[in-house]
């Protein structure tokens, strides 16, 4: 737990103090506070909700309706046909499979990398390890635009262009995840680790039986963030695939949105919803753990 240093910490009194009686003035200010809070929350919900709502109903409108002003807040004849049209406009089934395969395998491998690395940096007292840790962190500063072309050449020379392996290969290194998990591992109570060590447990056993079970929320959070990033990857899949059947969903969506030809907004928005639906689903499942996971990963240590 963090301890916070500030002047009056020393004045934490151990005696309980009588709370002043609630005056009507206090009740009024509490009410004002409540109103302000709900206004704030409502505003936040609206600001996020309206664009989302607009996209959903936009996906149900025809181009004609979209272009009419003032817009309707509910389309009179929902154009459900936009969804099958979007699905047919690109090999979405195949792209869904690609996205799922890439996301699943890449996230798993990346997490394995992060876990082992974080464990090593947190618990193995090798001199110079902090330097190597900095080296790993430095990878966060290398923008993707710099890496795509050289990686394309590397992957091509290995024969993995237009393949799932090629899509996955450059993504399995972990910098952020290593950082995140290391922070968390450092915050775990040392006694437990020590106890296991004394009992003669090897590192693999400590990792599997002690450290990981204590890290569920952090792992859940990291899995969410990693899986989402992989699902949404655009530039690398664009570069390393030339066939529609090997592309992933974000690339498919991008090609729906054309420069020449008619922009069918309704269809494009429907396609966008098709792409982001699984992420929302995953998010809803995991989001309960989110705050706790982030607390353990980013806050402590």
């Amino acid at each position: 737990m963090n301890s916070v240093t500030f002047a009056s910490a020393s004045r934490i009194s151990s005696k309980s103090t009588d709370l002043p009686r609630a005056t009507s003035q206090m009740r009024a200010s509490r009410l004002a506070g409540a109103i302000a809070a709900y206004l704030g929350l409502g505003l936040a919900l609206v600001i996020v909700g309206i664009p989302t709502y607009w996209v959903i109903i936009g996906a149900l409108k025809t181009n004609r309706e979209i272009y009419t002003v003032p817009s309707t807040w509910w389309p009179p004849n929902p154009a459900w046909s936009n969804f099958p049209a979007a699905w047919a406009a690109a090999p979405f089934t195949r792209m869904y499979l690609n996205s799922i395969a890439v996301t699943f395998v890449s996230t798993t491998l990346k997490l394995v990398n992060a876990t082992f690395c974080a464990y090593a940096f947190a618990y193995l007292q090798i001199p110079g390890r902090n330097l190597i840790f900095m080296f790993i962190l430095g990878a966060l500063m290398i923008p993707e635009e710099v890496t795509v072309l050289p990686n394309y050449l590397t992957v091509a020379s290995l024969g993995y262009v237009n393949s799932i392996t090629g899509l996955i290969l450059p993504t399995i290194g972990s910098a952020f995840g290593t950082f995140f998990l290391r922070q968390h591992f450092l915050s775990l109570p040392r006694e437990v680790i020590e106890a296991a060590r004394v009992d003669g447990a090897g590192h693999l056993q400590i990792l599997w039986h002690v450290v990981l079970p204590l890290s569920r929320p952090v792992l859940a959070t990291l899995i969410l963030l990693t899986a989402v990033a992989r699902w949404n990857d655009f530039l690398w899949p664009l570069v390393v695939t030339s066939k529609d059947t090997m592309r992933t969903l974000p690339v498919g969506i991008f090609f729906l949105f054309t420069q020449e030809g008619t922009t069918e907004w309704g269809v494009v928005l429907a396609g966008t919803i098709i792409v982001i639906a699984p992420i929302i689903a995953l998010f809803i499942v995991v989001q309960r753990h989110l705050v706790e996971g982030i607390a353990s990963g980013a806050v402590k240590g």
Partner: protein
Amino acid sequence: MQSIQVPRPTTVASPSATPAWSRDLLIFIAFIAPNVVTLCVFSYWPMIRNLWLSFTYWDMIAPEPLWIGLDNWVEVLTSATFWTVLRNTLVFTVGSVGITIMISLALSLLLNQKRVGRNLVRAAMFAPAILPGSAIALVWTFLLAPYYGLISQAATGLGMPMTRWQNDPVWAMPTVILVVIWKTTGYDAVIFLAGLQGIPRELYEAARVDGANAWQRFVNVTVPGLSPVAFFLTVTSILSSFQAFDVIRVMTGGGPVFATTTLIYQVYSEAFVGFNAGRAATYATILFGLMLAITVVQIRMVEKRVTYE
């Protein structure tokens, strides 16, 4: 706390003469090797190659890049474009990161209170952060479209002249900043929230007992308590802001003219539009150096003021 089922050894291992860590060295290497190798091949090797490319002229179709020494560097650093791009980058980063952090902090304080529906708001606000950048840019292009876009309808309803937001030299950058703020505020707020929940209640109680009002409690308890989180957020937000690309690409294409071209966009533009690999590499090296410098400065200067245990 988990109980561990580990077979007890019948003998105790005797301490060896070699230093304690040497036994772990093999394991250490085994644990970090896959990750380090991957990062070397797919992150660092491209960066080194990039540095080398900055000293060459290459249109990417010719079989070999042509060595030209410092020509690219001189050309870039003395071009008006570079300084415009640099200024845009700073405006973009300071604008988006600064405003996002302020709004998200306020939002996290709100979410920390036990109000009805706060979990819904929390989830809803976090959601944009996990959507693909291109999808968000698409959505906002749709919302900002002149005449039939929701924002345009609202603006003209309020009496503003019809503006083509993404094509307007004055409005293009604010538009892009706005979209980025919309995307990341919820994410930052959740992280701040996690930080808030890590501040011990007793500290607030003690401050209340000492007669501190809400503002004083905020300044003396909340702010120091949040400093590690704020630091983490600032560092990572700045890094990702420097690399923010999809939103700009889909919404404005770096335009009009250079109005929304940041360093990362210029790298893309020089490489994939201008087919000038050497100049692109120069910009990319400058970008990397800038990120490195800023992060180091942050770590040196700010971390001193971050209160840890």
